[in-house]
């Protein structure tokens, strides 16, 4: 067990005590271990140990045809799986040169923004829990439940969604799904307003979060931060605006930024992003009305899995079904990098393809992994209780951290 920080603290004269925060500590939401040197309540130094739930997704992806990689992406940031699924499908489409119909793009935008809202709900309400306010959390969870019911209506599952196909969706959104989306927009408007009035000017919450873990824009950029935590430092980098994918250029939305990058600024940025997400979903719903209502995938029979009833009754469909499932489709030899704005930063897929049955190399640029590396350095000199809410507001998801 060389190099392990737990066992290096053997100096009997030391004035500091060693504290193992994690790997399974109730105050850290996920499997995170930080070995901290403590001077009383204050952190002198810390070392992060990660990899407890490493599942070798990049290695597995080198042995799977494209469709079997989608469930792997579910398990990266499992608080917003649909964004990962769509990101992967769009990467494959970029490689294969597939253009999706506008209606598919707008449907994807709806799902991705719903996923962003659920992710921010979890992060912000849990930040409330960590500062001692359980109430917001208990109320906000019902809205996440409403979004999960929308997922269920569209793809059948809730957390690891495996939603969509290369080229579009597996089925059209039905009327119940649209009703649920509209209903969610109606109720969540009220819910988010309530949540904001509970927290935004709450004296205890503001005292607890303002000025905690301030980060300058220069430091954040040097550490390759992306997502809400980067925008909280005042940098308006958002992949949706910079390199629009899935027709985000058709939408009118704002990229909220914070001032000093502290926990409170991150909280406000996430809240505002939820408002913007709702604005985008409303526009998408309006745009969908103008599109033909029966299109939900691109016409690419070589890559889009045919519907089951056709597989059983139509020879062509049967052939394509087997070819796709076995990875026996022609793919170009090329490399592609595609990034989407995940709920906690730039989620990138670097795909090197050699025309084989599976990617030659697939690398996930995981925002949690890259965002989390500043955690130990920035905790130096911080109070332990502040370090807890700092971790909470970084919104690091263990599945994405360890891949």
């Amino acid at each position, binding site marked *: 067990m060389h190099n392990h920080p737990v066992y290096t603290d053997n100096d009997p004269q030391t004035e500091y005590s060693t504290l193992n925060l994690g790997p399974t500590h109730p105050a850290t939401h996920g499997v995170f271990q930080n070995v901290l040197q403590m001077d009383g309540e204050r952190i002198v130094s810390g070392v992060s140990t990660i990899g407890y739930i490493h599942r*070798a997704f990049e290695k597995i992806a080198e*042995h799977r045809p494209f469709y079997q990689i989608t469930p792997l992406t579910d398990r990266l940031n499992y608080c917003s799986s649909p964004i990962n699924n769509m990101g992967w499908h769009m990467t494959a489409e970029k*490689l294969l040169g597939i253009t999706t119909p506008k209606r598919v793009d707008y449907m994807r935008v709806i799902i991705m923004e719903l996923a962003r809202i659920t992710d921010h709900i979890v992060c912000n309400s849990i930040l409330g829990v960590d500062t001692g306010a359980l109430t917001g959390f208990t109320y906000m969870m019902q809205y996440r439940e409403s979004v999960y019911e929308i997922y269920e209506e569209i793809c059948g599952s809730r957390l690891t969604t495996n939603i969509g196909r290369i080229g579009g969706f597996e089925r059209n959104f039905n009327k119940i799904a649209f009703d649920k989306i509209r209903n969610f927009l109606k109720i969540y408007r009220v819910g988010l307003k309530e949540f904001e009035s509970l927290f935004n000017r709450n004296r205890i919450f503001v005292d607890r979060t303002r000025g905690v873990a301030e980060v300058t824009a220069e430091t954040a*950029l040097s550490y*390759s931060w992306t997502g809400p935590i980067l925008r909280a430092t005042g940098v308006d*980098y958002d992949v949706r605006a910079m390199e629009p994918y899935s027709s985000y250029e058709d939408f009118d939305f704002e990229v909220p930024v914070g001032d000093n990058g502290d926990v409170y600024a991150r909280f406000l940025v996430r809240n505002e992003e939820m408002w913007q997400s709702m604005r985008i979903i409303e526009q998408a719903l309006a745009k969908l009305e103008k599109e033909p209502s029966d299109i939900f995938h691109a016409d690419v029979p070589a890559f889009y899995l045919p519907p089951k009833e056709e597989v059983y009754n139509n020879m062509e469909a049967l052939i394509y079904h087997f070819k796709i499932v076995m990875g*026996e489709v022609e793919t170009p030899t090329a*490399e592609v990098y595609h990034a989407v704005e995940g709920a906690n930063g730039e989620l990138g897929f670097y795909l090197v393809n050699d025309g084989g049955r599976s990617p030659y190399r697939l690398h996930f640029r995981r925002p949690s992994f890259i965002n989390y590396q500043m955690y130990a350095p920035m905790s130096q000199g911080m109070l332990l209780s502040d370090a807890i809410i700092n971790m909470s507001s970084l919104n690091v998801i263990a599945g994405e951290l*360890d891949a």
Partner: protein
Amino acid sequence: MGKIANEVLIQKLGDKFPGQVTELNQDYGLLSVETGREQISDVLAYLKNDPELKFIFLTDITAIHYPELEKQIGVIYHLHSLTTNTRIRVKVFLTADDVHIPTATTLWDGANWMERETYDFYGVVFEGHPDLRRILNVDDMTVFPMRKEFPLEDPNRIDKKDYFFGR
């Protein structure tokens, strides 16, 4: 400022490092260039600090393994110029018996864990790295598991071999 054209990037890199930076491809509009490990620090520093390019954002560092090539291990940098919204990919290829390359942590703090991950999975030794330890795998692991010689599945299993599919 608009996107920098790939031709301009090639021109500028060619002027600054004559004969040392070669274009690999422009797949899907993203320029890939190759350079040697002797120049990589200078190339990255130039891309980052040049007032017209300003590739100040390190998106990613990773590696790739081609066992059949003479230079087997490729180290791949993705940089992003936020002000001009341009991306570039820089690659360095290394032989398997000498997998050393200078660190990028002197330019970006964020390179620290990316390089540790690359070391962990491909065994690329980043010289000058402050803390080059394994990061996701266990400390006492002896191999670099993302190299192609380590199969994922049971090698005795033959039902997934490529020759069954006419390849």
